[in-house]
């Protein structure tokens, strides 16, 4: 197996809100590792902390506590120049290709700017050449460099977002819901592109998404988050075939399948209630108020993420 590229250790990110004595516990003790060349899927519903986890890794948020070891360096201790150098190696692809590209810059300018700012390609003609190369790499045409974002479709814009991330020659890309804003017929194009690029360039992905079918397709391993905590983590096959945590099971059973005959036979675990507020998470296991199998002690003790089988961890005492 290849070396560990990223190790997130007991990551905590609390946000303080005016008028509230307690903070929002967006990320509350998250740990996982990603090996070089691997894709780790990070799934969960809105507000579970998956995006905040990604932003902490990108150092767009400074964590409240915990360590983020990337290529052997703890990112949380870095300042200014050192951080800037590392940022080249960790890039991001955002969800919304409409709001993450500057509408007043051409595609060529959008892609050339980071090359110039980071001093990667200093000469102007060489930069234009590199822009052409990047566009071709993501399945666009060199003449797209002269266009503005509004002249492109959603799928094409997301390709620009990918090219911009690639411009820095990163080793890790945080993909934050990269296909959920796109039309169904375009999603598969972008997923195939991400996979091709990974193969060709040896990229490592943290793939944040709420769509479990997409995550199963693209990930090697998957971590499931609920209310700021990882509740289960294992390789994709086992997660989908033998899910251990009751929340994972409920999530999987909620995913609709495009086959009426199969749907008619399928039992659904519809969860009671809604996700509690991270301002005031329940005591004990954070999932216990909605859990179909909870017992008394679930309200008392916080279950630790523990290894049930080799490479299969879950935070449920009943597993």
């Amino acid at each position, binding site marked *: 197996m290849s070396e560990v590229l990223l190790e997130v250790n007991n990551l905590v990110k609390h946000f303080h809100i005016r008028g509230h004595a307690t903070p929002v516990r967006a990320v509350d003790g998250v740990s996982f590792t990603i090996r070089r060349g691997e894709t780790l899927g990070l799934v969960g519903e809105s507000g579970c902390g998956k995006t905040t986890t990604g932003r902490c890794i990108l150092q767009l948020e400074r964590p409240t506590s915990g360590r983020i070891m990337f290529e052997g360096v703890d990112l949380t201790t870095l300042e200014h120049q050192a951080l800037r150098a590392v940022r080249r190696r960790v890039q991001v692809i955002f969800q919304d290709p409409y709001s993450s590209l500057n509408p007043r810059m051409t595609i060529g300018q959008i892609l050339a700017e980071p090359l110039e700012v980071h001093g990667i390609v200093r000469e102007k003609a060489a930069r234009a050449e590199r822009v052409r190369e990047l566009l071709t790499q993501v399945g666009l045409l060199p003449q797209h460099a002269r266009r503005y974002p509004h002249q492109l479709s959603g799928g094409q814009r997301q390709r620009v977002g990918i090219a911009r991330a690639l411009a820095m020659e990163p080793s890790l890309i945080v993909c934050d819901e990269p296909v959920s804003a796109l039309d*169904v017929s375009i999603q598969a194009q972008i997923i195939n592109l991400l996979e091709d690029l990974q193969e060709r360039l040896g990229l490592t992905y943290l793939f944040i998404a709420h769509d479990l079918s997409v995550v199963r397709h693209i990930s090697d391993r998957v971590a499931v988050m609920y209310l700021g905590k990882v509740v289960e983590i294992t390789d994709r096959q086992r997660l989908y075939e033998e899910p251990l945590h009751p929340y994972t099971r409920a999530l999987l059973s909620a995913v609709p399948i495009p086959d009426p005959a199969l749907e008619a036979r399928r039992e659904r675990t519809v969860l009671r209630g809604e996700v509690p507020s991270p301002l005031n998470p329940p005591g004990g296991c954070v999932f216990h108020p909605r859990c179909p199998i909870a017992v008394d002690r679930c309200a008392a003790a916080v279950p630790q993420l523990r290894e049930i089988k080799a490479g299969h961890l879950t935070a449920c005492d009943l597993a």
Partner: protein
Amino acid sequence: MAKLLQVQNLHTQFMTSAGVVRAVDGVSYDVEEGETVALVGESGCGKSVSALSVMRLVAEPAGRIVSGKILFKGRDLLKLSEVEMRSVRGREIAMVFQEPMTSLNPVLTIGRQLTEGLEIHLGMQPAAAKARAMELLGMVGISDAERRLAQYPHHFSGGMRQRMMIAMALACNPSLILADEPTTALDVTIQAQILELMRDLSRRLGVAMLIITHNLGVVARYADRVNVMYAGRIIERGTAAEIYANPRHPYTLGLLRSVPRLDEPMRAKLDPIEGQPPDLTRLPTGCAFTPRCTYRVERCSETPALEACGDGQHMSACWESTRLAKKVAA
């Protein structure tokens, strides 16, 4: 069963600086009493505009229903006066929108938003309307109704707001509910709750539903019949079983093949539909899917009509639909 809604050859257009957008370009479908029908398609295919046309809520002057008939219980809604139409909206046909936050009034209490329709449409007295509002909240699974009625939409979570929208839609006992992407803005586990709720209520109360969605998975479980739209037209229609087991239009087939599925063995690569969705101001002549179609033939420069393509109700608008027919296993 009797036909409740019949949309016939509907054309709805928008005038933009880039030209005329034929958002709905000759669409016909119907909904029978008590049944659930789906309109499926990607953004810009005309599915929402077709529902807004039924409600006569297409924003004028840019948007205009150019021609067609919308027969509801035999009456053509397009011939009604605005005053007559108002007694149809909310009373006989109700709508559930995608965005529960922006479609509720933020400065009115939940109670007022529920009772307003009851007082206006049904002439209820405030006390009776309040009692009915509490009953409605109970029906959609919102407990503690008395306290909830005094709250505002921002006190509600996304899932509860959508329950509230459903309660509003049901308030006047409509015979048809148009649900435009009713669960798209919600989390997966809440989606499941809302869809199960809508199905139970529609069965129990005998309300017909027209569900508009881009998610083929959602429709599989909840729709009796499915209409697939592309570039302003219906390109395939059939029972859910027909459409999913044996799609007869290359676009439907492409959509079904391009999504990864939890119930299937993992695939090395997905099979996307190549190319981009069409620009509605510059549609190709003939079938709009031709540039992206792997089954295309010369004849595709003529527009194929939606025609029966098998047993039962299955219809497809494709010259090559027989090539897509599954060989019957011997």
